[in-house]
Structures are given as C-alpha cells and as structure tokens.
C-alpha cells in the first residue's frame, strides 16, 4: 500500500544519488538567488524610505534573506548526504538523522511557499504606506531650511522626473498645499496677501506645480503656473492639454514599480519552492531505497523506494494517533503518580 513505489537496482540507485547531488547544487545556487533578491528589495525600499515616511515594513525582504540563508544550509547538507549515500559505510552514520531532516525540509518548503504568497500580497500594504508617506513629503517640500528635511525637495523632484509622475494621486494635489516657502514670498505685495487671507490656514495656495512635473515630450514650453487658467496662456485649454505635465500620480507609479518587482520575486520564489519539493522527494526515495535492501549485507541487491510507507489517509491517521497517544501518555503518568503518592501515604 506504499505510495508511488519504485523498484531500484544498484545502477538506478547510483544514478538517483548522482542526479540528486547535482540538483542539490542547483538548489544551493537558488538559495543564493533568493538571498540576493531579498537584499536587493531591501535596498530598493531603503532608497525611497523618505517617500514612505520611514514607516515601511521590512518584513518581507528580511524573510526572503532568512529563507535564502536557510535554503543554502539545508541544500548543502542534503547534498552531502546524497554524496555519502553512494558509500554504504558513510551512509550508515546519516541514517538516524535522515527522517527528522526530511520533516524539517517539509516544514521549510511550506514556509517558502508562504513567503512567495506574501510577496504577491505586499502590493496592498505598500499602497497605504505610500499614500501616507507621499502626502507628508509634499507637505515638507518647501522646508529646505529645516535640518532633517532640507533634501525633501530634491528627493521629490528627482522622483517625479524619474517615475514620470506628479503629485500623490495626480497633479491637483499640489494645488492643495503650499509648496513655495514663505522666505520667497513678498508679503508687501497685494496679490500675496489676498491669497493668504483667502483660505482658513493662511497658506499660499495656487494652481501651479513644481518644474519637475513638466513633461519633456510636450511640444510647447512647460506651463507650470496658472495651469487651470486658459486665458493666461495663448492657445491653451487645460482640459484637452495632455502632454504638458505628467498626468499620472506618484503613488500609482511607485506601487506599480514595486508591484512589478514583487511579482517577479514571488514567481522566482515559487520556482525555487518547486525545486526544493523535487529534491525533497528525491531524498525520500534515496532514503527508502537504501533502507529496504533485500539482502542487507549485499550493497548490490535490489530494493524498493516509496514516497510514503502507507497511503496518505493512513499516514494521516497514524500521525493523529501518535499525537493523541503522546497527550494521553502525559495524563496516564499523572494519574499513576497520584495513585503512587496515594498508596505511599
């Protein structure tokens, strides 16, 4: 009733062990790949942590780094076991370790699968972080004289030019904040005083955007001030003008950038998980084929290998019973002790 039983002779066993050893080396390299991807993603997040208010969660890249290191270690160990399995004397010292090792591999694969799933779902969390972070960054755009925030203007300008975006959701976000510092406003001018009085917070709001919102592909020189005022510019209609400034919001742009990155990393981690499951199955076959030799003294005899000793259902019920027995074992001991204590006294 064993699951997926396969007959093995010496030649087949040797071939399996050699092939598996090679696959384990590929798996080690895959582990290094996962580690480096985690590192790369961590660096990318840190590069733009100012946009996210230094609030972003580094959980996923840290998990990827940990998984990469674990994968390297586990696969190197598995490769050593495979290499030794060709020699019966060397293999005998690993026999006792093999079963717990396989269980550990199984748990590791499950964790790897969960990591891949987390990668795909990071997008949503990032959206909220970015929305909050960008709003605050735009608020501090004008504070180039405040220590700690004096580079916010430069960072925001570079980001808008690099990602080809303007504002948080779109360019109108710039209309709602004061992005011109008071140091450069002439408070004696009537126009300035009017604007400041015209809103509750006393902020200098205007329908203008910074120069980094300008689109170089526009056929005409950039219109960044009085964007909504058609009469201020010749032959201009701000409803139909599409190429003047970037229409996309920076939150969308960055979410799609990071989302694309995470999708790629998640797909690669899934492939690595598949590889790990493959080598685990191979190791199980190596283990069972070497423990069921027809003639234990003769290394060249035939043997059988399987995935599970009994069918899936039976294995499952076995495990449940074992766990119940372990639990009952504790209870019986307690009862026995109480009795023993009672009889003594």
């Amino acid at each position, binding site marked *: 009733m064993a699951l997926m039983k396969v007959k093995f002779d010496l030649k087949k066993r040797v071939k399996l062990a050699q092939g598996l050893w090679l696959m384990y080396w590929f798996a080690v390299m895959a582990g290094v790949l996962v580690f480096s991807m985690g590192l790369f993603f961590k660096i990318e997040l840190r590069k733009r942590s100012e946009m996210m208010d230094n609030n972003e969660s580094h959980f996923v890249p840290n998990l990827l780094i940990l998984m990469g290191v674990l994968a390297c270690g586990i696969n190197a160990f598995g490769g050593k076991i495979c290499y030794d399995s060709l020699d019966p004397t060397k293999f005998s010292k690993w026999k006792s370790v093999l079963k717990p090792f396989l269980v550990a591999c199984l748990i590791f694969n499950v964790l790897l699968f969960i990591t891949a799933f987390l990668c795909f779902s990071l997008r949503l969390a990032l959206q909220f972080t970015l929305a909050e972070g960008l709003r605050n960054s735009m608020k501090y755009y004008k504070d*180039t004289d405040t220590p700690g925030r004096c580079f916010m203007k430069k960072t925001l300008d570079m980001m808008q*030019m690099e990602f080809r975006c303007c504002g948080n959701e779109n360019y109108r976000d710039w209309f709602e904040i004061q992005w*011109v*510092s008071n140091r450069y406003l002439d408070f004696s001018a009537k126009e300035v005083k009017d604007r400041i009085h015209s809103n509750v917070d006393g902020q200098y709001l205007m329908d203008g955007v910074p*120069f980094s919102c300008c689109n170089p592909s526009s*056929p005409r020189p950039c219109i960044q001030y009085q964007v909504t005022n058609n009469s201020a510019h010749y*032959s201009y209609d701000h409803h139909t003008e599409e190429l003047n400034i970037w229409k996309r919001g920076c939150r969308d742009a960055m979410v799609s950038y990071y989302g694309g990155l995470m999708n790629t990393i998640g797909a690669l981690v899934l492939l690595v998980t598949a590889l790990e499951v493959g080598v685990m199955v191979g190791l199980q076959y190596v283990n069972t084929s070497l423990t069921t030799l027809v003639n234990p003294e003769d290394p060249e005899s035939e043997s059988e290998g399987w995935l599970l000793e009994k069918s899936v259902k039976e294995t499952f019920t076995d495990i449940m019973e074992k766990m119940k027995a372990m639990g009952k074992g504790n209870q019986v001991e307690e009862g026995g002790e109480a009795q023993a204590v009672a009889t003594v006294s």
Partner: protein
Amino acid sequence: MLTAVCSTFPHTRVSGPEPSPPSRFADCSRLCTWCAFLSHKLLLGQQYYSPLRALSPSSLPNTTTSSPTPTQPPRNKAHKKSKRKMAVLKVKFTKNKRDKLAQVLWVLNWVSVVTGIILFGLGLFLKVEINKRRELMSDREIHSVPNMLIAVGLIACGINFLGGKICYDCVDTTKFLRWKLLMLPYIICTFFFTFCILVGALMCYTMRNELEESLFLGLRDAMRYYKDTDMPGRCFLKRTVDMLQIQFQCCGNGGFRDWFQIQWISNRYLDMSRREVVDRLRSNVEGKYLMDGVPFSCCNIYSPRPCIQYQITNNSAHFNYDYQTEELNLWRQGCRQALLEYYTQIMQSIGLTVLIIWLFELSVLTGVRYLQTAMENVLRQGDPDSESDGWLLENSFVETARTNFNIIKNLGKCNQIDTTNNGDPNIDVPSTAHYGPDNVLPKQIPVVS
C-alpha cells in the same frame, strides 16, 4: 658532394648563392615569389651560407675544404664571427625549452584572440554611445575611431588565431615545415599590425578636439531647432535636449546664456496680438522672440527655492533674488563641457585598455619571432633534438637596416629603364651576362634572308 649535402636541407635556395643584390629581372611580375625570397634576405641576411657552415672542416671531416665559389671562404669565416657577435638578443634553446615556448605561445595566442574580441567589443560600445547622441553631434570624422577599433579587433582575432595554429604545429618539426615559408611574412605583417593597434590607442586620446568641434556645432543646431516640434525630422529635438539637460545636469551650449540668444518658443504659442510680444519681435534685426528665460530642464533640483526660469536677469521681478549671487537656481555647466567630459572619460579608459593590449601583442610577437628563429636553426642543424639559438635580428640593427635599404633601392631599379643609352631602348647593347665558366659567346645562328 656539395649538392648532395645541400639537398638534405629542404629550405635551401639553390638559385642565388651570390651575396650581391639580385640581378635585374626583366619581368617584374615575378614579384610575388620574389617577395618570399626578399623577406628571407631582409632579416635572415646571409643565412644561405648556413648550410655551408655545416660543411666547414670541423663538422664534416671527410669533405674537401673547397668552398663553393672562390670568393666564399674568407667572407664566410669573417661572417660567421660577425654573426655570432652581432645577433640581437640571442637566446639558447634546448628542445625542452622550445616545446615549452611553443605551448606557452599557443595559450597566449588564444588569450590574444580574447583580447581581440575585447577590442571589438570596446569599439562597438563606443560606436553605440556616439550613435545614442548623434542628434547632438554634427557629421564629422568621429566615427573613424570606433570603426578603427572594430576593424583592428577583428583582424587581431584572425591573426592570433593563425598564430595559435602555427605555434601549435611548431612542437613538431615536420609540421613546422608547412608553416616555414609563411612564418616570416606573418611576423612582419603582425609587426606592422601592432602599429595599427598603437595608432588606434593614440586616436582615442586625440579624438577630443574633433569631438569638441562636433558637439559645439551639433548642440548649437539642436538648440536652434528646439522650437520646431511640428517639423518632421526635428520634432523630437526638444525632448532630446530636455532629457540631455536633465540627465547631464547642464544648461545650454557653453552656459545658460545661450538660450537668451535664440528663440526657443515656437510662434504657434506666441500671441501676436499682444503689444509686448510685437515689441520684442521688433526689437531685434531678425524678428526673433528673444527673452532672458530658459527651458524648465535647466532648473537645478538642489535649489532651495522654486525654479526661476523666466526674467532671470531681472532682480526686481522676483522677491529676494539677486541673479549675480544666485548659484543654485539653474545648472551652471554647459552641455558641451558635460558631454565632452563624459566621452573623454570613456575614451581614456578605452585608450588605456588598448595600450595594454598592444603591449601584450608585442610580447606575443617577440615570443613567436624567437620560436621561428629557433626552429629554423634547428632545421639547419639537422638534428631536431639539438640545441639552437634564437634571436630577434640576425645582424645588428644598423646592418639589417643597411641591407634592407640596399634591397629596396635595387627593387626600385627594377622598374627603371636603362638610361645608359640616353633613354633609347632600341639601341642594341651587348649584355654583360655570363655564358658559362669560359664566358664564350654562343655561336650566332646565321639568318637566312
């Protein structure tokens, strides 16, 4: 006896034993075969005496000590002495050393093939970089440098591949015979080819002036056509110039004032009914709308205040602004300077790499020359396992140069008409050829009329 010994040396030329320059050939079309003969003469000098060296009394006790021609012996002995003294950088080679040299050279030749590929790659990279910004450069000779590098890289691959094959065969003396004739021309060709590599490296360093001129004209034209976004063929210049200024953090050709001298706003976006516009257009000779403003791409992102791109020189137009002291508002560097620095950096690294490759090729060539001379001497001595000498030049530089010069002079004479008869080729002049050992004219056959 002599001819019998001579025939054991398959490379021996039996045609011209005399040391004097070759007699004039009536037919100069035999130059091809003559070149091989010539190349042997040029660098090996008088090695045609070397088979006769083996015939000297010390090596062959049975032969008579008579020399092939009456004029030979004193010259031969004196020449032997001078040869021993004057060979340039002579090195003794045992059989082992020769084999090792051949193997090492085989490996080095393959490494040289890789360096040839590297040269090709560098040329290709430079060509791509120049092509990327060809809209900003006017048509000039700047493409000659990457083309040269590409050609040199390909030829280097070919030459070193052949060299590797030759060196591989040099371990075996029988196989070497196949390549014997080809080796000396190969070495000479490679020697001249290394000059090409050197020229390529030097061109990298001298390209700067051409590039500066090209960039100056190219950028000036690009800025002039900045506003022509509706003309096919020029509609992307605005975007190119804007992206250039943003990426290289520069403004204008030599500085931001260059934008003050051209009209960079298209007439389509100028309201001709306004008085201010009409005034500006009238205020200069060519009717251009000039102003003290720059495009947005000139704005410096490190500026603490929002970018001032219009009315730059007008202090009163902006609050708390002095354009003389304001340094962070716009990019101060000119785009010509920025691009020049960028390309100069690339070309300096490429030039350095090419120089290193040149030195490597030269050393490989020296090794091949030593191998060639050692193998030839071994064949001359007859015993493939014996020791032999290898050198760079058989005689000293001066001697070699003199003999070369004489040969080239006489080569030139081949083309000249005999001027002793006042240039008239029709006069019958009795020839001064030797007609055998007695020098008797052959009997004249009576012509039957």
